[in-house]
Every structure is written in C-alpha cells, then in structure tokens.
C-alpha cells in the first residue's frame, strides 16, 4: 500500500515536470488536471477508515480538479482564440532545470521539519514543497494569464498535498479550505480573464503592464 | 581735586592739540620735499575761516547729509574723552571702554558714509564704499590688539591697558607688543586715510577714499569734518604714543609734556612715512590690512600658547 502511494506521489512530482516542459497550453491543462485527479485519490491512502465523507471529498475533488476546471479553462482558451503555444519568459529547459533544483531543495528543506511517527516515511512533504515551487515557477515564468491560473492551481495542489497530513487530525477543514480557495480563486480569475479577453482580444499579460513607475 | 585738574587738562588738550598734528605732518612733508611749507598753525587758520563761511548744499541731499559732519565730530569728540592721554585714566573710563570707543567711531563713520551717499554722486559713493570696506578689516586688527593688551593687563579699561605697566610688558612680552604696535600703526594710517592707503593731497577723485567722501561739504560743515578728522588722528596718535612711551616717571605733571612731545613725534613719523612711501594700489590695500590682523593675532597667540 505504502509503495503504491509513494509511486503515486512520485507521479505527481513527475507531472510537475510535464507541466513545466510541455509547450502546448492544452498539454499543461491536461497535466494539471491529471495531477488533480491523482490528488483526489490520496485520501484513500492516508485515511485509516474510509467513511462517506471521505468518499464525498474524493468525488468532489476529482470532479472539480479533473473535469470542471479544465473544461472551464479550455473554454476560456477557445473563446479567447489565442495561441496554443506557451511562450515562456524562461526557456523550457531552464524551467525544467529550475524545477529540478527546486525539488532538490524541497527535499533538503523537508528534512529540517520533523514529522510525526506515522508520517515519517511518507514523501508527502517534499512532494508538496516541490509542487508549490513548481507553481511559483510557472507563475513567474509564463506570460499567458491562463498559464498563471495553472501555476496557481499547481500551488494549490501542493498545499493540498500537505493538507493530507492533517486530514485525520482536522477532518474536512483542510479540504474545504483548499477547495474553497481553488474554486473561488479560479472562478473569479476566470471572470477576469473573460474581461481581459474582451478588452484586449488576448490573454497574454504583456498587455497588463501599463501600470508601472 | 587733582583728578579734576587732570581731566580739565585732558579736555583742553584734546580739543586744542589735534589740528597741530596736521600742521606738523604738513611741515614734515614740506621739509622732506625741500619746501618751506605752510605754517604749523595753518590748520587752525583754515578752521576759523571755514566756520565763518557760507555753505552750498546739493538739492539732492536730506538732513542725513547735514547730520554727517555733526555726528562725525561729536563721536570723535566723545571718543577722545575715553582715551588715556598723560593721566592714568581718562575722564570717561570704565571696564569695556575700548568697545564703546570703537563703536562710537563706528557711529561717526556710519553717518559720514551715509552723508556721502546722500549726494547721489558716484565719486562720493565710491569713497564711502572704500571707507567702510577697509574699516571691516581694520576693526578686527584693532580688537585683536586690544586682546593682547587685555591679556597683558588683565583688564578691559584703556587707562590700565595702556598704563604704566606697559613699560614692564615691553620687557616681558615685547614681541607681542611690537606686533600690536605695527598693527595699530597700520590701523592709524588707514583710519585717517594716510599714505600708503590714501593720499589726502591728491586731486584724482577716483583714487581717493576719505577726501572724496566729503567733496560736497562746504563752509562750517566742512570745518567740522576737518576738525573731526584731526581729532581722529589725535586719538590714534595718542594711542600709539601711549604704547611707545607709557607714563612711567611717576610725576603726573611731567607726563603731560612727555605725552605732547611723543604725540608730536608720532605725527612726525607719519609725515616721514608719507614722504618716503608711495600710495598702494587700491587692490593691495586689503592685503596690508589682513597682514595687520595677522600681526595682532600672532601677538595674542604668542601670549596664550
């Protein structure tokens, strides 16, 4: 069981790299969506007993992260009639390298944080930090507003990963928080992207740098 | 009682002697030039004549112009009451009297220069500018000299500062006193517009200082200016005389002739200098004055180092 879980976690981390390295926006959306679905299944592994509430949580997460948000984003993209290629500030290779460095650092940093006995052999903390790092990387190195939303999604995924550690201690609160954040954030951002679309006929943030010193 | 007599002599001497100094200087210069020269008492004749004349006033002028000579004369006359002549202390003598003394002369200068500006004449303006400019440098020199004397005597009263003890100081702090003497002599020359700073006899308005300031005065007012100028000369001459020949013989009555003679000697000295030196270029005047300041300053540094 634990081995499978570790494999899945490694898969999640691998998806980070996919998201960083893929050049088509659709590809990134898919990678992030897949990561979301994987995350959705994780409560199965950390919860000792699986009740109705956990099932509900799993379903909601998977539907939201794996279906609703990707569709929403694809929709926005289609309406915007934008380029389908990511045009990064930092090249793909460099992004990947930075991602690798970040994952390494996350590993190192997570060693300084003591875990409880039952979590001590889990890879959750480094994976979480690495995902947060990737999210930041995407937020800071991609031009398109939609890619920034995806970066934000990655960031949230990282936080959710960490939240799994607390799932038992503080049931419901964690997921509720994460989902609320995600949902409202993405929802409002979506509206804004819509407006950006209408205003500029593009969702590249290049247009969004008029306000400066 | 003796004090009253001494003070009376002081006042009478101070009022009567000054024009004689001018006469002595003129005579000395004439001697050097190989001329007979005017009589020694000529300045007195001039004054009498001027006081009886009528006056001409410029329409440009105001009461300030008329006040100029009056203030100049009165301040000099009051100043003369404050300097020690042969007596150990002047009729007006108190701690800090040299300050009042200097500032009284300053008041006179203020009004003389203002009167010059009142005429609206460019030449008189020029003279006034030079007068006040050079004073700015002469004043510190005078005060630095005062510092030396104050340090030596331990007081700030001219009677004591230039009292009998000066003779003693010549042996103990001669260098400082000599520096002050030179410095004050330079101040004397500039304050009284003598060569090498100014030539009272020249007729080039552009090069004059004091004389050009009083171009427009005439009659009694001009007489007052002349008399005031001689008073001022007497004042500084007396200071120098006291510095060189302090009253030391112990007999106050004998001091008076000694004082008169020494003052006349100073006048002769001025005459000699006037005869042997040329006027400085106007731009070099400040340099000499700054030198005078430095001399005095060096004098005080020697004392307190």
């Amino acid at each position, binding site marked *: 069981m634990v081995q499978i879980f570790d494999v899945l976690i490694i898969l999640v981390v691998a998806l980070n790299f996919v998201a960083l390295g893929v050049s088509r926006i659709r590809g990134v959306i898919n990678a992030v969506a897949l990561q979301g679905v994987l995350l959705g299944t994780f409560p199965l592994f950390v919860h000792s007993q699986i009740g109705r509430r956990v099932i509900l949580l799993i379903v909601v997460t998977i539907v939201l992260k794996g279906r609703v948000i990707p569709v929403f984003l694809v929709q926005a993209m289609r309406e915007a009639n934008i380029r389908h290629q990511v045009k990064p500030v930092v090249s793909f290779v460099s992004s990947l390298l930075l991602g690798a460095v970040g994952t390494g650092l996350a590993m190192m*940093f997570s060693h300084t944080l003591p875990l409880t006995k039952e979590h001590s052999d889990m890879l959750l903390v480094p994976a979480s930090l690495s995902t947060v790092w990737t999210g930041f990387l995407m937020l*800071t190195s991609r*031009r398109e507003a939609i890619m*920034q939303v995806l970066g934000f999604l990655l960031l949230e995924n990282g936080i959710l990963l960490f939240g799994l550690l607390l799932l038992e201690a503080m049931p419901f609160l964690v997921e509720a928080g994460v989902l609320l954040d995600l949902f409202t954030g993405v929802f409002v951002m979506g509206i804004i992207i819509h407006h950006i679309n209408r205003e500029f006929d593009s969702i590249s*943030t290049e247009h*969004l*740098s008029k306000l*400066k*010193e | 009682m003796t004090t009253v007599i001494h003070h009376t002599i002081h006042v009478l001497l101070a009022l009567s002697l000054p024009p004689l100094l001018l006469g002595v200087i003129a005579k000395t210069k004439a001697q050097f030039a190989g001329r007979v020269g005017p009589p020694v008492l000529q300045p007195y004749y001039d004054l009498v004549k001027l*006081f009886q004349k009528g*006056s*001409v*006033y*410029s*329409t*440009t002028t*105001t009461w*300030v112009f008329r006040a100029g*000579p009056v*203030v100049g004369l*009165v*301040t000099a*006359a*009051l100043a003369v009451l404050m300097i020690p002549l042969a007596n150990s202390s002047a009729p*007006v003598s*108190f*701690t*800090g*009297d040299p300050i009042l003394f*200097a500032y*009284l002369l*300053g008041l006179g200068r*203020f009004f003389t*220069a*203002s009167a010059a*500006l*009142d*005429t*609206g*004449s*460019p*030449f008189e*303006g*020029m003279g*006034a*500018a030079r007068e*006040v*400019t050079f004073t700015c440098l002469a*004043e*510190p020199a*005078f005060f630095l000299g*005062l*510092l030396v004397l104050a*340090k030596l005597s331990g007081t700030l009263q001219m009677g004591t500062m230039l009292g009998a003890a000066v003779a003693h100081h010549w042996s103990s702090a001669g260098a400082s006193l000599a520096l002050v003497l030179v410095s004050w002599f330079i101040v004397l020359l500039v304050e009284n517009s003598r060569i090498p700073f100014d030539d009272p006899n020249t007729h080039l*308005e552009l090069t004059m200082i004091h004389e050009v300031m009083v171009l*427009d005065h005439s*009659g*009694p007012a001009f007489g007052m200016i002349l008399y005031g100028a001689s008073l001022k000369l007497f004042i500084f001459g007396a200071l120098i005389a006291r510095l060189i020949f302090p009253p030391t013989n112990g007999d106050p009555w004998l001091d008076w002739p000694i004082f008169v003679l020494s003052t006349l000697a100073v006048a002769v000295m001025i005459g000699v200098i006037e005869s042997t030196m040329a006027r400085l270029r106007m731009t070099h005047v400040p340099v000499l004055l700054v030198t005078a300041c430095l001399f005095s300053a060096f004098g*005080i540094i020697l004392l*307190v180092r």
Partner: protein
Amino acid sequence: MTERLVLLALIIAAMSGVPGLLFHRNSTAGQWIAVLLSVASSSLGITGLGLFWALGDSQPITLPWRLPGAEFSVAVDGLSAIFLLPVFLISVLGNIYGLGYWNQTKHPQNGRKLRLFYGLLTAGMAVVVIARNGILFLFGWEIMALSAFFLITTEDDKKEVRNAGWIYLVATHTATLCLFAVFALLRAASGSFALVPFENHGIEPAMATTIFMLGLVGFGIKAGIMPLHVWLPSAHTVAPSHVSAVMSGVIIKMGIYGQFRLTSLLPTPPLEWGAIVLGLGAVSGVLGVAFAIAQHDLKRLLAYHSIENIGIILLGLGLALIGRSLGRADLIVLGLSGGLLHVLNHALFKSLLFLSAGSVIHGAHTREIDELGGLAKVMPWTAMCFLVGAVAICGLPPLNGFVSEFLIYLGLFGTLGQEGQVPFAGAAFAAAALALIGALAAACFVKVYGAVFLGVARSQHAQQSHESGPTMIGALSVLVACCFLIGLAPLLIVPILEMGIAAWAPDLNEKGHRIAALAPLNWITVMGLLLIATLLLVGMWLRARLRKGGVAATVTWGCGYMAPTPRIQYTSSSFAQMLVGLFGWALRPRMRQPTHMTLFPRRADFHSEVADTVLDKAILPTFRFGAWLFSWFRVFQQGNIQTYLLYIFVALIALLLWR
C-alpha cells in the same frame, strides 16, 4: 496668575483670525476684529509678564492629558518670560501694521487665511515657550512651524513663493524629526517627557552629547544657524513683511529658546559644547553678514542679517556654556545676559527693519535695492525708522544693539582670564569675529540705507512711491521707542535678564554674580545721553552758523561732469563689490561682465548675483542626486506581474532561511 493670563492670551490669539472667516472676502470687519483680539491678547500676555517680573508671580499649571506620556504642564520662568515678550509684542504690532500693509480690501484672496495662521502662529510660539512637557512642546512647535508655512505661502500663485515655502517645509520638518529624537532620548534618559533639569551624573555623557547635538541641529535649523540656514533667506523674502518681521524677530528665536532651554536641562557640559556653539556663532555671524552684503533684494538682505544676529546670540550662549564648563560665573552671567538681551534686541530692531522695508515695498512696489533711491524725501518717517533700525542692528551706540554686543564683548574678553580664573583664550578670538561682524554690518547698512533712501530715485517705482499710513508708521514708532529705551537705559532691563539667568543657572544670583557688577551699564546710559545731548548742541550750533553764513542750493558736484543722471549713482552692487570680492571664497558670486573692450565699445553691462552657497552647491545637488538614485529603483516596479510574484517567492525563501 501669570500662567493663566498667558494661556488666556494665547487662546485669544489663536482665535483671532477665526471670526474673519465668517465675513465676506471684501469686508475689513474681520481684520479689525483680529486686530482688536490681538491687542487684547497681547495686553493680557504682557500684563502677565509684568506680574511675573514685578512680583515673581508664577504658579505652574499641570493637568493630566490623555496622550501617551503627555502632561499639560505649563510654567513661566525667567527664560520663558524673555522669549514671551517679543511673541506678544511683535505679533500685535504686526497685526496693527497689517491694517495698512495687507488690508483685506487689497488682498481679498488671502487676507483671511493670513490672519488665521498669524493668530495660530502667535499661539504656537507661546505654547513652545511655556511648555514644560516634551509633547506639549512639540505641539506648540509644529503649530508654529506649519502656520509659518502657510504664512510664507500666502501668495502661493507665485512660483518663487512656492519654492520658498517648499524649502522651508522640508527644513522645518527635518528640524521636527530631530526634535522627535531629542525628546525621545530625553525621556529614555529621564523616564518622562517632563522638561526638568537633570541632576549632575543623572545622564550618561554620551547620551547628553547626543541629545545636545541633535538639539543643535533641530533647533539650529529653525534658528537659521549657518550652514543650516538654507530655508531662511527665501522664506523671509517672499512672506508678507509683517510676517517676515515675526519670522525673523520671533520664530527663529524659538530655535534659540530651544537651545537655551535644552542646555539648561542638561548637566554641566564638556568644554567642547561651548566651543562648538561659539564657533558656529562666529561662522554664522561673519558669513551671514557677508552674504547679506552681496544681496540686492532688500528683504533677502535683511534675512541674511538674521543669520548674523543669530550668530551673535550663539556667541552669548557659547560663552555661557564655556563658563559653566570652567566654573566661571562671570562668563555665564555675561554670556547669558548678552545673548538674551540680544534676543530681545534683535526682535525689536529686526522687526523694525522688516516693517520699514515693508513700508518701502508698500510705497514703491519693488524689493530691488538698485531700483530704489531717494526715498527719504517721499517717505521721511519710514526713512527715519529704518535708520534707527540700521544703527541699532550695527550695534552702534546709543541704541539697544550696542548694549547686548557690549555684554558679549565683555564676556569674550573675559575668557582670556584674569588672575585666579581659568582661561579659555581660544574663545577670545570670537571678539575679533564680533568686531568684524560689526564692521561688516555697518558697511551693509550704509549701503542699504544709502541706496534705498538717499540719493536720487533710480526708477519709476521709486519716484512714484508714497509714505505709508498711520497704522504702519505707528507700529514702527513703538519699536523705535523700544530701541532707544533699551539703548539708553539698559539697567531697566537688567532685572528681567537676571531672572532669565536664574532660570538657566539657578544659584548664580544668590551668590552675588550680578550683571551690574560685571558690566558698567550705567556708563552706557551716561555716554548715550551725553552723545545725544552733544549731537543736539552741535547740531543747533551748526544750524545757527548756517543761518548766519547763508546757504545756497545747487546740484551735486559731479567733479566737472555736467549732466548727472540718477543712473550714475553708485549702486548697491558696486558699493558691495570689494567686500563681495573679499568673501568670494564663500559667496561664490556669479558675475557677468563685459570681457573685452574694442575701440568703440558696445553697450555693456555688469551683473553679479550671489545665491545661497549651501543651498545651491550642497543641499540641492544632494537632493537631486538622491532623486536620481531613487529613480533607479523604479526598475523594480515595471508592471510585470511575474516579477511581482517572484518578489513574494524570494521574500518567502529569505524568511524561511532567516537565522
């Protein structure tokens, strides 16, 4: 009683401009109400001071005040009283003068604003002087400072006024921030904001020196000590003249008051403090007057003289500090009495000069000295008053300026030390500096008086000028009378000064160190009266002579030149040229002169101008450099959201790695 009267007076003063706001902008009713309130306020205030001086009546008021560390604590002591007198006197005279000078009908735009802040200014200054709590002090201080800002910018539609106001505001706020530090440090050392003297050894020497130095900067900016004076010349120039009079006569004295008060709190100082103050005094004095000589704007010239006089006051304070370090009571008494008296004197004669200058501006509509001339004929009263002010500010007998300089001279000579006294002879050189200051001031005022009032009018402005009305001349006359009073009867003011000294150095009077014993002020009275009497006698004699000898009138003798015009007169710039040259190393005059002469010279002109060296060569370049440097940081905010997010990331990592 005194404190109550003063408080009442300052409240009335603060309110004096308020009723005017309710009246129409063209109505003078508000102005009259302001003047009446101001008269009432000053009468009350001066009555209070009279009570204090006559009876020693002082009942400090202390009330709780619900602000952290604050206490509403006011008291009048000898030091406060001396500074309060000009606050009340000059402000009411300025207000009366304003009836003619800044009449509401002539200045409907800004008259009401001016009087509102004029009243607040008076109140603020009174609070500064009586406050016995650091926070209350700061309140008064800032109300004063800000009101002054609004007064300076009365005519804010002019660019030069805005610039002057801006420089003032920056300077005054820098001062305020220094004072924040001063009072915070005082509290750190004493445990409260109450302004009470420290016991000896009650404060660490390093702490005391820090406080003193910060105070020197903070108060020094307000006082206009060279080189902290940068705001002063332009602010005094552009403000309405009765405001300039208050600024120069009273506001900058608040900086001096601060220094007196602060040094009275701190324990026995090291000798360096006195030496520094003395040195600053000499520098301010000499350079202040040197700059003044180079000016050709009447009010700017007077403004630089304020710096000079502040220098003279500092000489007095420096002496007192040195006296305290050396344990020489005579130096303390002479330094303080000279300094404090000069505070009073400068308030009188500088206000007199500014108000007279205002009268000139009122009549001739220009401040350019070289456009004036011959005003003594059309404005005889103004000319007379200005002359009195000029003689007084040069420190010439028989007026008040001489008395205070005399006291300071005595003290400076005293540092040479008699037998049995500890000398500090270095300080004696300040006597020579004071002599230089005096002579330069005389040169400057001969120039100004000659160029403005004497000779012939140089321009249309001067020709068409007119004498000012009775309210303006009336205000001037009061000041003239005060100048004569103190100049001729200095002993009258001695008790006041001694109470001031008692507040600074409490036990001196009891030990018999009296001013009268150290300085022969009675001789000044004698000589002053003798001078006036002789002048009158000789003057009458001359008059009789002239009547007898006959007087003819003609044009000025032009040395043979037959067609004199007003333009051939010596101008103020040419008058000052030699002196400006002598001080060229500090003044850095900008000159434009004809370079070469051909056989038939063209029309040529000479122009010289002296800007403020510290401001133009040091402060402004520094500010410009700062702004340039700061503009480089703008690359961090270029509208790129990716970069913004990066900052957050970097900050996060930095905090995680902290330690």
